[in-house]
């Protein structure tokens, strides 16, 4: 169980991250196409603004949360932390993970209801074209749910191994030397 988790969980988190990267690529291409069509043919792609904000952005933010949590990539201040004895550091480490778990579980839990509600009423944005936005609401429970799952896994790991890394940092986590 533990052995298989060690593989499946990082793979899952990485897949979400890669998927988000593809979405970002689509976002760049979509905006570039919109600008080109607007400039050359006076024909903007209708709804670009809302598709970017409601789909691409939501995916770029929520899908990589899992890998950020798995690699402990959260932005934090470790000025004082370094000066503390190991035992207190351990307590703070666990507290931090518990706080994160609470926060993402809270957001994730609420987002399930929001997504269902949004689906039921067929949420859309009115404008040049009508953009259905209810599907994008489901990105939140997916991204946050997997992040919560990973935080539980991380908590167990930290209770056993303390500050030891869960996942060896890869270059893509912006952690390597340049």
């Amino acid at each position, binding site marked *: 169980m533990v052995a298989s988790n060690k593989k499946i969980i990082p793979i899952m988190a990485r897949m979400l991250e890669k998927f988000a*990267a593809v979405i970002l690529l689509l976002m760049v291409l979509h905006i570039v196409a919109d*600008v080109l069509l607007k400039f050359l043919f006076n024909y903007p792609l209708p709804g670009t603004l809302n598709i970017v904000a409601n789909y691409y952005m939501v995916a*770029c933010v929520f899908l990589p949360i899992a890998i*950020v949590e798995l690699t402990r990539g959260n*932005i934090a201040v470790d000025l004082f932390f370094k000066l503390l004895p190991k035992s207190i550091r351990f307590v703070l480490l666990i507290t*931090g993970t518990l706080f994160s778990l609470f926060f993402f579980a809270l957001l994730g839990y609420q987002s399930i209801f929001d997504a269902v509600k949004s689906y039921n009423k067929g949420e859309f944005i009115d404008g040049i074209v009508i953009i259905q936005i209810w599907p994008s609401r489901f990105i939140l429970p997916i991204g946050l749910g997997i992040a919560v799952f990973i935080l539980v896994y991380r908590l167990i790991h930290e209770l056993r191994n303390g500050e030891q890394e869960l996942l060896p940092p890869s270059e893509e986590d*912006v952690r390597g030397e340049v």
Partner: protein
Amino acid sequence: MTNIEIGILGVAATLILIAARIPIGVVLGVVAFCGITLITNLKAALSITSVIPYNFITDWNLSAIPTFLAMGFIASEAGLTNGLFAAIRMFLWRIPGGMASATVVSSAMFASASGSSIATAAAFSRIAVPEMLKAKYNVGLATGSVAAAGTLGSLIPPSILMILYGIFTSTSIASLFLAGVLPGLLSAAMFIAMITFRCWRSPKLAPATNEQFSWEEKKAALKDIWALPVLVGFVLGGIFFGIFSPTEAGAIGAFLSALIGFSRRSLSFEGIQKSLTQAVYGTSSIFIIGLGASIYVRFLGLSGLPVYLADLLLPVTSNEYLLIAMISILFIVLGMFVDSLAILLLTLPIVMPLVIGLGIDTVWFGIIVIKLLEIGLITPPVGLNAFVIKSSLGNLVSLNQIFAGIFWFFLMEVLTLGALIYWPQISLFLPSLAN
């Protein structure tokens, strides 16, 4: 417990938890949730935690962050930055800290066009900082110059913050735009003067190259550096001529840097994939803080703490300098915790009647306000520009190093602010010419 007490307790808890190395975004979110529950009730708190995050993410102005991050990552992955900074170093070797000053100038230009401090920090941290580190520049100096120069984005027109200030206070945006130019240039000059002076006094901050380069070598270096100026020039020009909006510019910049990279055969598909992955990773870690912060603003608003502080600090006075000094303190304190727009929303309703009551010029006051809001982007514990640089550079730098480096720039900002307050003409000269 009164709401004010809950607010004060919340801020104290925030400071302690952040110092305990709990992730900043998580601290803001959890403290805000608990505080809102105490002030209102659980149902309202759950409602806010559900409606605010989605609304925050889907704000079009923020969609520039991932694309500008991607532009920075792709440009550095494609090696567009290498030649240019080597050349800068060759030509500016006499000037102490020349690369840092060049960074201030180029990112100030970029920031003024893009109008977004965060977007500039996102693009330039990857473009400029690694090159300075290669040249053994001090980490704080390198990151500080990007963080601080980025903040000029809102002072030099166009500027979304000025537009919002103009709308909120019914002040002419055209006058604000003109008024921001000289203060923006002054700020950049102050940064450069500080960098030059510090690097001259302690050369190890920015080691000068020992080698003397021949003209042949300098000419050879110039041959290879066209890519980055073309990239930046195209983005600036496109915004200037209204071909695309500043928000769209990030995507254009990312696309163009990939094209240049491919044409120079210095970028592979793996390189693109890596850059985009890095960009979404950075986007996510920045937005986790943004999410927490967006809920935190609601907590502060409901607690009434900003109003309370304003009432406490802002005396009934007929001395405009005293009033502006106290407003500055209020904004700097609030700026430690919440972002620019939130400060405007939380405080303008209280501050503006006092300002208008004393007959203070709202254009001049607007420039001071923008300067103060921009300072908030680089002050700890919640300094968005510093966070963007951190997530763009990863383990290359620590947040402490960034904030330590920013300290000197912060001092310059305070001096500049003093000058802007003492000499209103710096702001009002250009608008007066136009009238």
